[in-house]
């Protein structure tokens, strides 16, 4: 006798309810109880949840039907989504594979100087460049050079695409309050959704063998800060300066290129820095879906309980993070658009 039987009887729904009822055990607990030959006794006053109502009225769905519905719904639209998304995202696979191949193909004695040159160009700081040199040599010394380059190649591609997509989206958001209002919840969702969760639909959509699977996961996770800070940066540009630009007859394109973007650049660069950091965080999780690099070693450390392997790879990621952070921060501080200091 379930708790809500009386309710459905008084509502006169007994007949409608009994249509869907079945005597078969509906849950593991029911099955076990049946096996022992005793009635399940729930709490005195159970919450009217779907499962509890179902006990009294078989025509009401159970919670597992809801999850099943979601899954079936997703599977139903999957072919359509796949036909649309597959060709669009295919270049991402090529880019990722190409970058991976390039980073691996270029021998270390060429690659390291190139990386140092980039660090110097971006930061113009001797200290930062020397630090990068020591860090890379340290990684290479413990035979983590190859995996570190794999990770770097993924970050390189994903950050690049995040900026290419994120800056225009941020600009569009800064121009339209309505677009901003509708986009912010999506960005919040992307940032708060546990990263494992949005791997799930991606695994259904794309084959794990394709590199775009982890590429999309990383980009979705890492693109948020660059969008947010581009939007913010443009909105924070001094209204008086914008008014002056208008008063001298600048059209919207001249205003964007000549005034808004340069003045928003420090904020946009801060967004890029955050995007790099977040893609590095995601690259480890992405190793679950076959992303190569240092993350694979961390995963091996967890799976096989190889403490040393996991920790060395973890430190490798930290070193990579510090390198990327220092170089991009140094570049950021160089962007002093207002020239307040001489």
């Amino acid at each position, binding site marked *: 006798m379930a708790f809500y039987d009386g309710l459905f009887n008084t509502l006169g729904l007994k007949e409608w309810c009994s249509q869907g009822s079945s005597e078969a055990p509906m849950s593991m607990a029911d099955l076990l109880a049946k096996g022992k030959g005793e009635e399940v006794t729930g709490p005195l006053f159970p919450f009217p949840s779907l499962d509890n109502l179902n006990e009294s009225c078989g025509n009401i769905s159970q919670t597992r039907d809801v999850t099943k519905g979601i899954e079936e719904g997703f599977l139903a639209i999957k072919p359509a989504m796949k036909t649309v998304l597959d060709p669009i995202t295919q270049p991402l696979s090529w880019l990722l594979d190409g970058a991976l191949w390039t980073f691996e193909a270029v021998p270390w004695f060429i690659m390291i100087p190139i990386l140092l040159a980039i660090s110097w160009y971006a930061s113009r700081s001797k200290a930062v460049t020397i630090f990068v040199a020591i860090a890379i040599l340290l990684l290479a010394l413990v035979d983590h050079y190859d995996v570190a380059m794999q990770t770097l190649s993924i970050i390189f591609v994903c950050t690049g695409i995040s900026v290419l997509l994120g800056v225009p989206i941020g600009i569009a958001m800064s121009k339209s309050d309505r677009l901003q209002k509708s986009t912010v919840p999506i960005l919040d969702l992307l940032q708060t959704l546990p990263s494992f969760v949005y791997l799930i639909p991606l695994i259904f959509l794309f084959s794990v063998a394709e590199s775009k699977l982890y590429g999309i996961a990383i980009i979705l996770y890492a693109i948020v800060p660059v969008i947010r800070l581009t939007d913010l940066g443009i909105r924070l540009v001094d209204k008086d300066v914008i008014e002056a630009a208008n008063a001298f007859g600048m059209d919207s394109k001249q205003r964007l290129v000549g005034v808004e973007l340069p003045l928003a650049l420090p904020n946009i660069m801060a967004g890029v820095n955050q995007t790099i950091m977040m893609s590095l965080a995601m690259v480890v999780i992405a190793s679950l879906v076959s992303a190569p690099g240092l993350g694979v070693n961390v995963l091996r450390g967890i799976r096989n309980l190889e403490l040393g392997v996991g920790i060395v790879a973890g430190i490798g990621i930290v070193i990579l993070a510090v390198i990327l952070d220092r170089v991009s921060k140094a570049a950021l501080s160089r962007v002093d658009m207002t*020239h307040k200091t001489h």
Partner: protein
Amino acid sequence: MSTKPKVSLRGLFKIFGANGKEALQHVKNGMGKEDLLAQHQHVLGLQDINVDMQAGEITVVMGLSGSGKSTLIRHLNRLIDPTDGEIWVDGEDVMKLNEDELCKIRQDKMSMVFQKFALLPHRTVLQNAGMALKVRGESEETQNSEAMKWLERVGLQGFENHYPAQLSGGMQQRVGIARALTANTDIMLMDEAFSALDPLIRTDMQDLLLELQQELHKTIVFITHDLDEALKLADHLVILKDGAVVQQGEPQGILLNPADPYIEDFVSDINRARVLKVSSVMGKVKKGAKYAGDVQIGDNLESMIALSNGETGKIYRVLDGKEVIGQLDMLDLVKSLVPRISSGKG
């Protein structure tokens, strides 16, 4: 003067709020600023502004803060759109222009100087000064040579490669003026251009502006809350209160014949001897008068008092160039220095 005004505002209304058109009807039916705000949550910015600005003159719009003067100047280049009314510039109805034409007229006909300078912080002084030409798409060479010419004119040679943040406020505003001059437009809009500067520099800048105006003869619209500044610069003075024109005309006339108590209060505090000129108080030549000397029509009364050594019995002959056009009785002069007491105070 029969010439057509350069800029003309006809029946201009501005009401800030969600439904300005509807609120406009209430205002036209005689509702005041306070009632409109209390009953309809709309702010009355400007009401029924009719002003003609003549070519080659400095029109000064003066009012206290909140009187709508900054709103008014932004209507001329439509940085703010009016709720109702017409704006004519060079015989062209600015209200009928589309987006592109509006950009064009802002580039070619009007330049603006701002209270907070509003220079581009990421551009050098030279690039800032040449901004208007860059917007118009002129060659970089023209931009730089024109900008350089005007920077030198406002006394900023040697600073062209500095950035605005490296300059003092007065120098930044010189860049602002150079930027407006480089645009080489007939009309210059100056929104409280000197209000953020300290008094000494402000006087310098006023002199600079008058000096430039002597040779350039631009149509300048100048906004200020400072009556002394207004009287010093104005050819035509417009006084705003609560978004409406209280009085407009030649500044000396306003000073001597204030139209209402508001303006009487306003003008009672200033140094009349310095502002009033001989022309405003002189009388007709009378026969048999004994003249203590000759003075020019443009002299101000302060210099007259110095000349007469404070004696009120003297009479001077007034000349315009070499022509005798009147006489000045020192007794009249002294009387004119007493401000007309506001009628409200008895």
